[in-house]
């Protein structure tokens, strides 16, 4: 007795001998799993997916403790009248602040009068002197023309005072416009409210709820036409021309995190629906009259998926953003066991075997093949469990466990139900499956002619396509993975354009003010080579010009003030008098230090009162020049600022979403290579143990190797790129692609000729591949382009391996069969 036969016999004695008891235990377990699965929650906190021991994660958590969260939820108001925008913002602020349960604080204006008044000290001294020169010319000209006795023989135009070219250089201090207290854009068409919720930006459910509350509030507010305007949510980037409408939109880190996950989640139902419909369609296509058999398998599949989610409850306790899509994928993968089982069982029943014997033979043949192929899939998923990224490791664990659970469930449920039905109504199984595979006893299978030529042609064609494989590119731009025209992204672009700011900054923590100052000094001036990705560094010291410059400017201002003091104020017309007093304030400023800067400005760079003692300190923000959507540029920015050394020998670390995502990107890229390598080795070992022959192992691997090569070649030709999302599909394609060769080779090992093997197993392989394809192809219907790319890669890979299986393998097996028969 072979090992397979012994396994099948053991299965018969345990599972098949007492089908009622077996099914009862199975159903009880399933019921318990269903109860457990019903209590499963989806943890939408992306931060929990990364190892909490990582320094980058700890740094971000410190910032969250210091300032209540990383980034903001931005409410942007757009309109043609800045005064109306201010009024609407005031009302919005009042409402938001009243929600003390959800809102920590709202920032939409900061008193920058102090900075405006000391603006002259921020100027470079030559600029200040030039301003003085031009103002003096204007004053002299105005005084001249104000003289009632002034007249000209040759008329001249009044001196036009133009200072924009100089003033424009200094309207922003520390990334903040000082032209207005409100967060108005330069063109005065947009006003921002920076909302800090009570939770961090990775808590997606709470953010979603807050967004809906704000939408509902603005709808009610707009209906009341406060200040004569309606309020409309809009992301077209242009204010309404008639001025009777204010447009609002949501952006910022909180919103973009939520939008991305919301789009993924909202895709799940239609994707799962399409997957299920696709699987059912393929099954009905192949099984036609045998609907009851299909229903039996599908019911077993669903029970297996329920058991898997029950396992998820006791093992991990919750799902995450990635494991939440497991249902559809497991359906597509798990159905294969049922399909191969049905086909083999139908074949055995069609050959006149009794049900129990037919089942035993099915287990011995396709059951063992299913174990091997399933083991390959489990190995691929298992390699993901070693990832540092919990999104992948949990996915790998649950998917791998799911394949085992579903396989077991099908081989318990389907035979158990058939045996019970057979007991009460003999002949049921044959009626359900009879004729599924026509008896081929008296029908010769035929022979593949000229196998060597056929092999040469097919391998040649595959190799030609695979030759393009090295040209496959990696898409580093994460924006390409998102839904086109995602609102928070559009608004982010508009804000960046209107406010001339780059992406969200990273924060560098320092314990003392002195350390914060040393950090700030390090970047002044910016080393364009060492910090090529850095746009600006902002800390509270950005509000204090260098003392040497202050002193030099003070000299200029003092002499100017003396000059202006000689002008008799009483001789001025009354409309000029107020402006004169105002102007003198700007000229009579004195140098100041950080302690003179208003607390409201300094507080932006310090911890909240509620911060734990060990996290109290100061923050310095580093703004990037580069587009952080571009993964390569994000990595470069992270490399330049993640670790900072000051001249006094201290080390600091930047923290924030870009650093986290850079770390994540590195983990994904590393894990992609690692999992593919590990999977390949595991598959090789698995086949060697199963087939005990290097030649047969090589032949079984052939569809996979050539199929993957063709897949990569096709990707290069069609310019389909690998990216941070679809790269996780790679090991799955490897694991699944192995199954084609395994089933064919096992059938061939039983003594069947290649064409007999194809006839017997080929339909099952085609059916199972198409059902799996249906599962993955459904992802291509998702609005999220990252999910689409996963579906595309999976479909390309599985189609390529299937085609190679039906072209290359028969030729190779024919040559082996010819050699086998000639030897015997």
């Amino acid at each position, binding site marked *: 007795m072979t090992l397979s036969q012994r396994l099948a016999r053991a299965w018969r004695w345990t599972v098949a001998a007492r089908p009622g008891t077996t099914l009862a235990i199975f159903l009880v377990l399933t019921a318990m799993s269903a109860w457990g699965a019903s209590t499963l929650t989806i943890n939408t906190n992306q931060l929990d997916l990364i190892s909490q021991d990582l320094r980058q994660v700890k740094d971000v958590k410190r910032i969250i403790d210091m300032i209540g969260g990383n980034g903001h939820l931005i409410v942007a108001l757009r309109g043609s009248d800045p005064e109306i925008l201010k009024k609407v913002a005031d009302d919005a602020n009042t409402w938001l602040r009243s929600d003390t349960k959800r809102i920590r604080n709202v920032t939409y204006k900061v008193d920058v009068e102090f900075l405006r008044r000391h603006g002259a000290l921020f100027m470079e001294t030559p600029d200040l002197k030039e301003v003085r020169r031009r103002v003096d010319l204007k004053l002299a000209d105005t005084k001249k023309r104000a003289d009632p006795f002034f007249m*000209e*023989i040759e008329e001249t135009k009044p001196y036009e005072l133009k200072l924009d070219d100089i003033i424009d250089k200094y309207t922003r201090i520390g990334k903040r416009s000082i032209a207005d207290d409100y967060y108005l854009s330069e063109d005065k068409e947009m006003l921002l409210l920076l909302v800090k919720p009570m939770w961090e930006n990775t808590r997606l459910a709470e953010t979603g709820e807050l967004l809906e509350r704000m939408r509902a509030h603005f709808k009610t507010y707009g209906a009341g036409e406060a200040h004569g305007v309606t309020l409309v949510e809009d992301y077209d980037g242009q204010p309404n021309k008639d001025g009777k409408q204010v447009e609002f939109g949501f952006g910022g880190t909180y919103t973009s995190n939520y939008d991305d996950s919301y789009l993924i989640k909202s895709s799940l139902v239609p994707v799962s629906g399409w997957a299920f419909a696709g699987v059912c369609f393929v099954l009905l296509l192949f099984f036609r009259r045998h609907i009851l058999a299909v229903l039996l398998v599908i019911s077993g599949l669903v029970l297996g998926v329920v058991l898997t989610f029950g396992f998820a409850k006791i093992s991990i306790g919750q799902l995450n953003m990635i494991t939440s899509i497991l249902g559809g994928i497991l359906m597509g993968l798990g159905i294969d066991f049922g399909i191969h089982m049905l086909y083999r069982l139908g074949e055995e029943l069609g050959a006149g075997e009794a049900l129990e014997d037919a089942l035993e033979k099915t287990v011995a043949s396709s059951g063992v093949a299913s174990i091997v192929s399933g083991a390959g899939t489990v190995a691929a998923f298992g390699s993901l469990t070693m990832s540092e990224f919990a999104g992948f490791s949990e996915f790998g664990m649950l998917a791998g466990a799911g394949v085992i659970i579903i396989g077991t469930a099908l081989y318990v449920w389907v035979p158990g139900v058939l045996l019970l039905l057979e007991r009460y109504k003999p002949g049921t199984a044959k009626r359900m499956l009879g004729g599924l595979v026509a008896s081929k006893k008296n029908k010769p299978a035929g022979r593949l002619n000229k196998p060597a030529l056929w092999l040469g042609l097919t391998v040649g064609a595959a190799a030609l396509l695979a030759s393009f494989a090295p040209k496959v590119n990696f898409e580093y731009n994460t924006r390409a993975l998102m839904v086109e025209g995602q609102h928070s992204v559009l608004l982010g672009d508009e804000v960046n354009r209107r406010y001339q700011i780059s992406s969200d900054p990273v924060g560098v923590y320092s314990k003392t003010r002195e350390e914060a100052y040393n950090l700030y000094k390090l970047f002044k001036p910016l080393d364009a080579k060492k910090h090529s990705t850095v746009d600006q560094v902002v800390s509270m010291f950005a509000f204090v010009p260098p003392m040497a410059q202050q002193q030099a400017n003070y000299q200029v201002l003092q002499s100017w003030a003396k000059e202006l003091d000689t002008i008799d104020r009483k001789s001025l017309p009354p409309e000029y008098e107020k402006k004169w007093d105002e102007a003198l304030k700007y000229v009579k400023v004195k140098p100041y230090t950080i302690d003179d800067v208003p607390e409201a400005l300094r507080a932006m760079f310090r911890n909240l009162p509620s911060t734990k003692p060990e996290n109290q300190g100061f923050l310095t923000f580093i703004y990037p020049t580069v587009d952080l959507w571009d993964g390569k540029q994000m990595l470069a920015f992270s490399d330049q600022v993640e670790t900072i050394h000051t001249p006094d020998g201290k080390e600091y670390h930047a923290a924030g979403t870009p650093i986290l995502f850079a770390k994540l990107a590195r983990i994904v890229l590393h894990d992609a290579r690692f999992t593919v390598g590990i999977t390949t080795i595991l598959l090789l070992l698995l086949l060697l143990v199963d087939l005990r022959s290097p030649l047969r192992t090589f032949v079984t691997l052939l569809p996979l190797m050539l199929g993957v090569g063709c897949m990569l070649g096709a990707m290069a030709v069609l310019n389909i790129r690998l990216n941070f999302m679809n790269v996780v599909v790679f090991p799955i394609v490897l694991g699944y692609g192995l199954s084609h060769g395994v089933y064919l080779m096992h059938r061939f090992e039983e003594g069947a000729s290649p064409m007999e093997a194809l006839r017997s197993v080929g339909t099952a392989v085609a059916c199972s591949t198409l059902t799996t394809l249906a599962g993955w192809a459904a992802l291509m219907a998702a609005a999220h382009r990252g999910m689409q790319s996963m579906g595309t890669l999976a479909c390309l890979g599985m189609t390529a391996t299937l085609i190679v299986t039906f072209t290359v393998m028969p030729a190779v097996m024919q040559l082996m069969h010819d050699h086998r028969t000639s030897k015997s």
Partner: protein
Amino acid sequence: MHKTLKRTIGAIRYKRSAKALAQFDGPVQGAYLAGSYWAKATLAEQTEFVTLFHKMFAGVAFPNIQKNFTNLETVLYSKPKVSGSTATVDAVIVILHPLKKQEIQTTFAMTKSAGAWKVVDVTVKGNPSMLQRIRDEQVQKILAKGGFPKLLSLLRARVAKIK
């Protein structure tokens, strides 16, 4: 001297330009403005200059002064400082604007001509005098470029523009 000034200010205020101009010593003004060019000019040129200059004065400066005098409250004159046939008189022109009181401190330069005191120049405190400004910023530059004929031609063009 005070009477001359009062007459002058009153005439300007009530738009009696001819009467106001009669209080000015044109030839002395012309000599000051043209400097060395004055002696070289013919009598006809000198006469034309004074006429044109006074027309410009009346057409450009008088309306400005009238505007300032809209809310004129009073003019406070100091004691004249006489030096031979020349004198200076400080005066404070008090204007009562709706929101505040404005005081324009002025100094009038006068000469005695044919037994009567005439106004030559006026200075607002903190500014160059009226004639000094016109001479330094305009007349001397024009004379240097094109002499008296050029100056007269520009004055004619300027006066022609005045409505």
